[in-house]
């Protein structure tokens, strides 16, 4: 019983940064922009988030620092790819390389420092319910926020006019422009939202997951978030399932190694990625018609005036 609860708690904690980063990237990609710099924005978010929390002693301020850092990084990306119409793949990769270096620089002075991690919810009575109490009522604020974020994004994309316009930009930017929508402005905002989410997801790691900062602590989570967006076929609902599945596989492979299951640990670590590949193959085989990816994804748009 204790172990099951511990595993579920660990899965939720491991999944949350993936879910937040992937939700942001989903919005970015739905507008037609492919930002491969998620890993870079996350790692800078982690460094700045830790710095903010350490300097002010407030987790909340730390999270804001992380969001600001991710947004600034994405703004640089938007300037290059939308303002100057540079290739999105190359810029995104460069952004990640830049982010890794930048975070090392910002975080250098904070390595070895500790902060008090984010508090967990505690409602006497409810939180003490065996098995489900701590899972449902004993999480940190990030976990609840991440779920609210996905619901909010779903509602925005499918129930609001602005969401419809954003999806339209991702499907066909020439048509959207012809109808008079400001494609580049909408995309810039979508990219900034993606950056803010990536920064927050990065900040989650030193603020709630482990109470200290180490260089390179995102450890490829940004890439998993990118894979998750594809895995979800650009739908928020499937994103939640995918993120928890990934978190679960990550945690289970750790436990499996601990139990001494006779499978090489490298293979177990590769499982999440293998799962992505398999799901992608299944999705593309099952597809009967309409393409799942936003049709204008990753293409450069220069409006004629």
């Amino acid at each position: 019983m204790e172990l099951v609860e511990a595993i579920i708690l660990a899965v939720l904690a491991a999944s949350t940064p993936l879910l937040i980063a992937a939700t942001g990237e989903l919005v970015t990609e739905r507008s037609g922009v492919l930002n491969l710099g998620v890993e870079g924005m996350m790692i800078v978010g982690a460094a700045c988030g830790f710095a903010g929390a350490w300097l002010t002693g407030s987790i909340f301020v730390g999270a804001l620092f992380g969001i600001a850092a991710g947004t600034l990084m994405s703004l640089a990306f938007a300037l290059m790819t939308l303002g100057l119409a540079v290739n999105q793949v190359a810029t995104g990769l460069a952004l990640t390389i830049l982010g890794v270096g930048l975070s090392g620089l910002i975080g250098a002075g904070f390595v070895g420092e500790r902060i008090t991690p984010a508090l967990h919810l505690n409602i006497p009575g409810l939180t003490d319910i065996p098995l489900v109490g701590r899972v449902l009522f004993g999480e940190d604020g990030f976990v609840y926020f991440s779920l609210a974020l996905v619901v909010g994004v779903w509602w925005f994309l499918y129930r609001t006019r602005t969401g419809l316009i954003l999806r339209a930009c991702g499907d066909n930017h020439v048509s959207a422009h012809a109808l008079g929508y400001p494609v580049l402005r909408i995309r810039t905002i979508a990219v900034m939202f993606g950056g803010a989410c990536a920064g927050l997801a990065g900040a989650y790691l030193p603020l709630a997951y482990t109470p200290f900062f180490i260089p390179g602590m995102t450890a490829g989570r940004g890439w998993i978030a990118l894979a998750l967006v594809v895995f979800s076929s650009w739908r928020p609902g499937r994103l939640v399932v995918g993120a928890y599945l990934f978190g679960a596989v990550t945690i289970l492979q750790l436990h499996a190694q601990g139990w001494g299951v006779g499978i090489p640990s490298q293979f177990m670590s590769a499982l999440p990625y293998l799962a992505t590949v398999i799901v992608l193959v299944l999705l593309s085989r099952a597809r009967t018609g309409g393409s799942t990816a936003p049709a204008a994804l990753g293409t450069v748009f220069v409006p004629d005036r």
Partner: protein
Amino acid sequence: MQAHQRMLDPTTNGLHSGESPLLRTIGLTKRYGDFLANDAIDIDIWPTEIHALLGENGAGKSTLVKAIYGLIQPSAGEICWKGQPIVLSGPSEARSRGIGMVFQHFSLFDNLTVAENVALGLDGKESFKDMSARLEQVSKTYGLPLDPKREVWQLSVGERQRIEIVRALMQDPQFLILDEPTAVLTPQEADQLFVVLERLKAEGRAILYISHKLEEVKRLCDTATILRGGKKVETCNPRLETAASLARMMVGGEIKQVKAAAGRQTTVPRLVVNDLSLAPGEAHGVRLEHISFELKGGEILGIAGVAGNGQDELFAALSGERLSKDPGTIVIEGLAAGHLSITQRRKLGAAFVPEERLGHGTAPRMKLSENALLTGHAASGMVHHGFIDTAATLKTVDRATETFDVRKAKRDPEAASLSGGNLQKFIVGREILRNPAVLVVSQPTWGVDAGAAAVIRQALLDLATAGAAVLVTSQDLDELAEIADRIAVMFHGHLSAPLATSEATREKLGLLMGGSTLEPKEAAHAVGA
């Protein structure tokens, strides 16, 4: 947006006395760098008028309507709406003033539903539910049936255009711009569209109608303005002109008549397709279903049909871009070739000209000589022991240039720097100079100016006269009538039995293009012909 009472009175037709036009442009000019896309254009559009805008590709029609719709800002000149000069900040302002537009390349979103597509074209002041109800009402009123819940990629070209028209009509426009609306329709679908347009006119609206099809313009339009090279040439009454006189004004000279050599002899079968079926290669593709035909030397077979009915898939199967499992389904020069690669088919004497000039027919950023090599390397002596004979590739470019009057800035420019017509002349020339036994060509004069189109059609006729078998896929029925000996129609991956061109009336072809079958007797007769 409430359906405000229309203030226009249909009885003010014709005379225009004592009032100002609905829309007037004065000296409208649009400059791109040194290039004048529109040079001081004056045009008046009155209520209750269908006004044609004619001109060749590049004459400035699209630029003019984009400026009127607020998509681009004019460099100089004025637009007056109901007598008042206006500056349009963008399409949404144009729409709110009562200007609607139906685009040539539909401005639709494939992965969104019909209702969502319509909502995007409106200003969003009503709820989605109210909008859907009004959509149903408008589509019923004008006889343009639509299912609001379907996603656009599932719809036919004709249905897609209906969405565009309904979307424009839902804004209750006083002035509607249609950019080549019939280019993708069957003759019957076009007739239905004309009924709607006549009705809109009777309601007191004005319509600006862009088209290449002169007969259609003569039939439908009250006024015609002709543009050439960015300048206005003339405004006239098209009913008092002939198609030839309109064409002269568009081109600025006589167009060479295409002449078929008398007494063309058909010889042995050179391209035979036997019961070819092929699953589509991509998500929205069409399945080829039991396609059979026989094409003899000296003969031109035309394939008509609305775009997206399997023409691209047939071209890919014939050219070898997609292989068939059964070699016997495609026979070139008496040899089973269904399993052969593109190069192997070229070695048998086949040549292919795809629809897309840039990216499919040529590599846009490569020089013409390199592009000549790309299709000629196997069978034209341009490669010796694995090395390119640069002199030979350049000679091919020179020969194509001379024979087909390709106009270009230097001897060997990049393919992308040529105009559409000149590049197409080069591509067709490149293939014809290889003396192919079989030429498969798709949309040979799509987006090509009238002069170049005449050169290309003449070249295809001459090639057939010289004994080659030519297969032409085209959406332009007039073109097929001009050059083909027989015409077959593609619909949903099926190919109809070919009709002799003399018997292939527009009506019969239109029925086949819409998926109907001809009377069994008639079809049997046509096969025998």
